[in-house]
């Protein structure tokens, strides 16, 4: 059922461009609050680069810590954009229209944030940046392509390039619209970005084809990115990491957390920009139904991972499993994963009444991501803390204040960038929204009015 409000094209343009011209009070709060956290983040990173990784909580068995966990988390979040835009575009799901833009932007910003983590996490980040990107082939020292750490930046940068192009393709018509309605620096910026868009038939056709092509091409990249991130762990011999299920498991977990993050973003946009006419309850309903399927799929893989880690009944795996299921603090993480990741949100989403409640959708989506962060920590850390039989070397990992600041800062960074984006670009795709209005039809079937969408076959 669509609760579409009948708005003219002009009204749609005005309302969707509103965040660009007026700044709600809460937005200032957001800028200042997130900016403050961001300042701490910048300070923490500088501190770490200046003094070295000694200021973190990392030590011998725990060579990877919070930053890698957070890297995996943000890569996971970045899977929402393509999940929503590309798959739903290819399957022509109508409810994608108001969420594509926000989801794609979130993809790009969370990818950028994620990329930051492994770079600052290396021992010599200056060397990583200066000599590894671009690689100094002229000295004939080639990167070792056998290693997942080479696949990683390749996949992520491909994904970043692809999604940026994808976003930009869908942004062009809106840029032309903005160009025609602005003056000053904005006009200059939008003129450049609109690439001479006049909205003639050929341009629309090219734009549509490019959109479809990019969605198709980006799908394999989308699957490969998180698979490769999972292989960072799974190709090693560390017990509990060396699991064949990791690739699909990470991908479905990424979709679970990413789509939930889109729900969070939808609720925030609806509240902050008063987009009630565009981000409607039916959209929450649809995305909630999608999340039930995704969440249940994730649970299946989660259980497969646990069961088939226990299955060989080898002391190494069993001990770590015992450790991470029943010992503090991992027992709390286990509970968080199960309860927040599945057993609170999914039963709630089963009921349409709750799916159509923005407040409930907002908090359940937050719960999922709390659970998913815990899941990443739970997956990555215990294997390192209890690696093989060397009880002499086993050790706890305690993150330092620097690492905690970096984690908080990464959230602030994504939030801040999203806010800045919505000041410059319309956060909902204007042309897609208008297209949707054109295609929407109401049919009289018996006594009921049924909504329908005109679509080419």
């Amino acid at each position, binding site marked *: 059922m669509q609760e579409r409000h009948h708005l003219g094209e002009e009204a749609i343009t005005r309302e969707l461009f509103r965040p660009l011209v007026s700044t709600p009070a809460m937005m200032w709060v957001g800028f200042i609050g997130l900016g403050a956290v961001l300042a701490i983040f910048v300070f923490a990173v500088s501190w770490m680069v200046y003094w070295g990784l000694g200021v973190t909580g990392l030590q011998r068995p725990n060579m990877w810590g919070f930053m890698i966990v957070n890297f995996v988390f943000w890569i996971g979040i970045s899977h929402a954009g393509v999940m929503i835009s590309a798959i739903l575009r290819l399957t022509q799901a109508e409810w994608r229209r108001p969420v594509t833009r926000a989801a794609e932007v979130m993809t790009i910003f969370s990818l950028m944030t994620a990329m930051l983590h492994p770079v600052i996490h290396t021992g010599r980040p200056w060397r990583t940046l200066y000599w590894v990107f671009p690689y100094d082939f002229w000295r004939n020292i080639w990167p070792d392509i056998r290693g997942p750490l080479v696949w990683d930046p390749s996949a992520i940068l491909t994904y970043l390039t692809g999604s940026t192009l994808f976003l930009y393709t869908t942004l062009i018509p809106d840029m032309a619209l903005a160009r025609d309605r602005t003056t000053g620096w904005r006009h200059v910026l939008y003129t450049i970005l609109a690439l001479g868009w006049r909205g003639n038939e050929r341009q629309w056709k090219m734009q549509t084809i490019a959109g479809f092509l990019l969605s198709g091409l980006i799908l394999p990249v989308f699957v490969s990115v998180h698979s490769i991130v999972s*292989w960072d762990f799974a190709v090693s011999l560390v017990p509990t990491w060396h699991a064949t299920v990791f*690739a699909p498991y990470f991908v479905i977990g990424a979709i679970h957390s990413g789509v939930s993050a889109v729900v969070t973003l939808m609720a925030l946009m609806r509240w902050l920009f008063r987009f009630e006419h565009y981000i409607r309850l039916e959209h929450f309903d649809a995305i909630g139904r999608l999340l039930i399927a995704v969440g249940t799929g994730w649970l299946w893989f989660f259980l*497969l991972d646990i069961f088939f880690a226990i*299955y060989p009944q080898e002391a190494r795996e069993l001990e770590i499993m015992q450790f991470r299921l029943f010992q503090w603090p991992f027992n709390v993480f286990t509970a968080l994963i199960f309860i927040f990741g599945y057993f609170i949100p999914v039963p709630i989403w089963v009921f349409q009444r709750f799916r159509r409640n923005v407040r409930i959708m907002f908090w359940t989506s937050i719960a999922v991501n709390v659970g998913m962060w815990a899941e990443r920590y739970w997956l990555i850390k215990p294997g390192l803390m209890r690696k093989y039989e060397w009880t002499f070397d086993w050790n706890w990992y305690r993150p330092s204040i620097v690492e905690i600041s970096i984690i908080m800062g990464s959230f602030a960074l994504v939030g801040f960038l999203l806010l800045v984006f919505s000041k410059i670009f319309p956060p909902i795709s204007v042309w897609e929204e208008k297209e949707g209005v054109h295609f929407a*039809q109401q049919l009289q079937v018996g006594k009921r009015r049924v909504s329908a969408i005109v679509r080419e076959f």
Partner: protein
Amino acid sequence: MARHTTAVTHGHELQRTWELAPRDVLDAGLRWVRTLGAGRRSVALVALALGVAGALALVAGPVLSGYANRQVWAYTAVAFVYLMSTAAAAPCLSTALRVARSHWRRPVNRAAEVWAVTLVVPLVLYLLLMGTLPGTENRLSIWFGWPLSPWLWGAILMATLAGAGYFYLWLSSLPDLAIVRDQADGKRRGLIARLAGPWRGSHRQWRMVEKVVNNAGVLYVLVYVPTMTVLASDFVISMIPGYFTAVFPAYFTISSFEAGIALTILTMAVLRRWGGQRDYLGLEQFWALGKMLLAFALLWFYFWWSEFIIFWYGRTPREINVLKYIMAETYFWPFVLAFALNFALPLLILMWNPIRRSIAGPTVVAGIVLVGNLIDRIRLISAGFSVPDITQHELHEIPAAYIPNLLDIVILAGAIGGAVALVLFTFRVLPFPSIWEVTGGLWLRQHLPYKHTRVIVVGKPE
């Protein structure tokens, strides 16, 4: 959803379905029951004869080679797993399409669901195979010492699955059964009347069916996935020492979905060619399912690769031996064939737009996938049933490949023939197309003016 009436401009065949009146659909369904479904008796009899031969071979095998010889049962297990991967997976596709609420799925659903009628064959085969499954003491299994494992729990799952499948099929054909009961003449009315039960088409009954059909399908999927997980573990993973893999059950399930889609496409092609379903099963259906088949062929590779790369990088002697056994040495050719027929050929054929957007293209690939799935199952089950000592944690020496004899092939053909015979006999009572679903779509259809043309629009009620 709508189609331009000026379909020629896009070069697509217009789906005739949306031009029909509900009355036409009813007539087509009744014509099917009266003539078409009942015809082709010879095919049904051949299939039945195969089924009987298979049953006899099933008895002869253990009598000749001894009940305790596990290798004798390998091809019974292959037949069982193959039916679980194809016939039992098809209703899952139907559920997925129902939940996604697209209109093109309306005539497809029954072609997929009708395979649920064969569930009795794998159930019987499983009950036979239960005796050959070794107990879980002294060996690794997913059951961790549960009492009566693995027998009782597998049987419970299989029985639940069969029950859910029959319930789903019955529920989704209930309104049509009532139509046949009321309109068809002849001898089959007694059975159909009993099946159609109290259906009168009241408002309450319709609401109930529309609500429950989806949930019954979801229930079926929710039973199917754990069943396949358990079967993957009981028949393959725990039978090959050192095969420590968590992704295999997912691979097993996903490749079964691929085969289920292929089976549905093949069924559709048969119905279209010999069943007079040209108006209902057209390009739109084949095209959409062709895309799904391509997607699942890619997933086949993805899930296989996820496992392979971990073993390849792990390089422990245990992993290398398993790779040698099921992929690189002993079962090399079955693996290469499975790889080619499940992934490489479907990809190479279906990647071309004109082939995907045709009737013949997806049909041919569906046939290829069904063969590929069979070879893949033969590879895995033969490997699992040929290890003499499954109590170890590692393959110390790699067993020889199991070459099937005539009896094995008769068993396999018999199980497939029996399943086909069951479906052919069901054709005699179930109308094609699904009258209530196709007409349900037609009620939501309207011709509307749109810009410079007139379009057919199909509404989407919540």
